[in-house]
């Protein structure tokens, strides 16, 4: 293999990872608190879950198209790509946080309240530790999906391994397509394995 191709693979893989890490940090920072909020505010559930569901159904190319003309978050480049990735990653994180907390055994929560725990003590000492593996499973699913989806960032100049794939498709060059697809698949496998390990470690019992 030519050394300049290898060098480009490494550079774009790093670029790709940067996109994914940025998007995941933002998606977790929004999704987990929002999921917690939903467990406390039943009336907001249909609205927020509906929004997150709709985001998932919009085809990725169309979503980028919608975002480009929007001021501040839109335009060409990485920022728009990250916004799109966050919108996709939100649903699994939001839903698993919400389902994980509501899935904590009712008798355990009832005891906690009856013993005089405040809502924040209930959340921090009981619900979040017991829901942690479920929340982590949501983060893992979202991360693996995001690693795949991030390849479309290249279409709006966001970089990443998609650069190879779009170049390869345009020039019918299989080597280029594989240079993008194989590292993306490897990163996804590594992330799945690593986060799966974290998920098992978080299991409280």
């Amino acid at each position: 293999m030519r050394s300049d191709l290898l060098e480009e693979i490494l550079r774009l893989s790093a670029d790709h990872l940067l996109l994914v890490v940025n998007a995941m940090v933002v998606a977790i920072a929004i999704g987990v608190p929002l999921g917690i909020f939903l467990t406390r505010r039943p009336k907001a559930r249909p609205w927020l879950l509906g929004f997150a569901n709709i985001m998932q159904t919009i085809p990725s190319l169309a979503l980028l198209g919608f975002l480009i003309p929007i001021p501040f978050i839109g335009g060409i480049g990485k920022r728009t790509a990250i916004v799109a990735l966050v919108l996709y990653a939100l649903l699994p994180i939001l839903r698993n946080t919400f389902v994980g907390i509501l899935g904590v055994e009712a008798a355990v929560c009832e005891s906690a309240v009856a013993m005089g725990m405040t809502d924040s003590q209930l959340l921090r000492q009981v619900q979040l530790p017991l829901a942690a593996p479920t929340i982590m499973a949501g983060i893992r699913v979202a991360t693996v999906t995001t690693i795949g989806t991030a390849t479309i960032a290249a279409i709006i100049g966001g970089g990443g391994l998609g650069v190879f794939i779009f170049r390869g498709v345009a020039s019918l060059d299989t080597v280029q397509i594989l240079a993008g697809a194989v590292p993306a698949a490897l990163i996804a496998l590594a992330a799945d394995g690593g986060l799966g390990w974290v998920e098992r470690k978080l299991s409280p019992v």
Partner: protein
Amino acid sequence: MALVEFRGVSYEIAGKPILLDLSLRIEAGETLVLLGRSGSGKTTALKMINGMLFPTRGQVLVDGKPTTEWDPIRLRRRMGYVIQEVGLFPHFTVRDNIGLVPKLEGWTPADIDNRVDLLLEKVGMPPTDFRTRYPRQLSGGQRQRVGVARALAADPPVLLFDEPFGALDPVTRLELQQQFLALQRDFKKTSIFVTHDVREAMHLGSNIALLDRGRLDFVAPPLEFRNAVSQEARAFLACLEN
């Protein structure tokens, strides 16, 4: 002054009455059993004592103050709570489960350790064997013993029991009932005990309050209860005869 008093308490959910005009006094040191069929409103009444539910009409007074005027956190920490499903925290050791309320109340770890060991001894579980175990490593009966120890942890004046022994096998149930009576002699708490088992009511109660479809049928000590003439009381007493 009664420690806990129901004054004309009614409770309804979406127009459906659960409790109707309940008035009841619970004096310090007694064990009041709330006896009734499923759906008679006994659990609802219990949950009004520690402010998990509030009356639609009337008042529940604890130490002479309506529950609506108590800080719910302070109110609940004055009361131990034991339920059939136990509700131990699966991610806490036995020591941390029992020591929870003391910890919330800011006790030192050494004081918590001493209290946990004392209570484990009292409920017949050697502390060195059980302190560091997790709930999943205990039998059903052991879990409920820990549940009782947890309720006693911060030495609350009032204990609330919601069919605590209902899910246990008959032998274990009897052991835990005996232990309940022994603890009652040692600690002299005021207990409110919900059950549908008339034997258990006669065995454990100093007073029995019979609830029939949300109404108080009558209140009497176990010996007088035997002579009760109401239809619902006779229905329960018939269970003793077989």
